[in-house]
């Protein structure tokens, strides 16, 4: 999972992933659209492939790069879990703060 985070952390790689949302594309097409040279694109694609985020589909004479839904979904699930943890904590904190506010109010009334 670290690999997937690190892979998407590089801005050009994130741009490649975004571009591939439109469908599979060959290396030269990706380079042309994002104004990156072919060795750069190949290097980024290699990293994305290792991280399980893209796959190669051979088609006729070409090699097309496509997003791998499963890799992205796993990454998303990790994030969701940590967000859930903090959401759960903050929800409890919010409840507690409401109780403490009420208590302060009623204590204040008692003192008067």
């Amino acid at each position, binding site marked *: 999972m*670290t690999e997937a*985070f690190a892979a998407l*952390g590089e801005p050009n790689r*994130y741009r490649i992933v*975004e571009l591939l949302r439109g469908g599979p594309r060959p290396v030269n097409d990706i380079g042309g659209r994002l104004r990156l040279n072919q060795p750069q694109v190949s290097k980024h694609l290699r990293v994305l492939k290792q991280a399980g985020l893209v796959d190669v589909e051979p088609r006729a004479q070409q090699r097309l790069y496509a997003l791998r839904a499963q890799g992205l979904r796993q990454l998303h699930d990790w994030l969701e879990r*940590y967000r859930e943890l903090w959401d759960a904590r903050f929800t409890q904190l919010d409840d507690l*703060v409401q109780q403490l*506010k009420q208590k302060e109010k009623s204590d204040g009334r008692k003192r008067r």
Partner: protein
Amino acid sequence: MAAREGEPVLTRRTSFERVSDRELVIARTIDGPARIVFDAWTRPEHVRRWWAPQSLGGRMVSCDAEVRVGGRYRYVLEPGKGGRFAFSGEYTEITPPSRLVYTAFFEPTASGPMPGAAAVMVTVTFEERDGKTHIRSRELYPSKEVLDGALATGMERGVHVTMDQLDELVASLR
């Protein structure tokens, strides 16, 4: 998205942002004044009521904190799936009700920090506006690798990748 200074704080959603190689920011707005939120964040009798995510099956085993500069804290948790882990550290700055700085060590089996483990520096700010408090917890990790590792064990997202972007991305793949 972390609220920027001067912007109204409207969201009650938890936000995460990896703001640099070594830093993670978790933020949320809580409905209540800063003095109450600060107490709830620090006093052990309060912390034990919210730190463990009960809706996810978590349980607080123990919670000790001596809230003074140089004082120590230790929270022991039992996640839903069995086992135990702990967070511990020392307070280095306490400015109620607006700012708190402490070190944090993760203890994977609640048996003390791993030998040679470096501390995460946590700076929490509490900014009150219209009776609500914006909490911003900034975690500074000893190195990029440590943060990457923490993320890999179930923590937050990568640089530049916002949760919303990922949401959208995943939705587009369904």
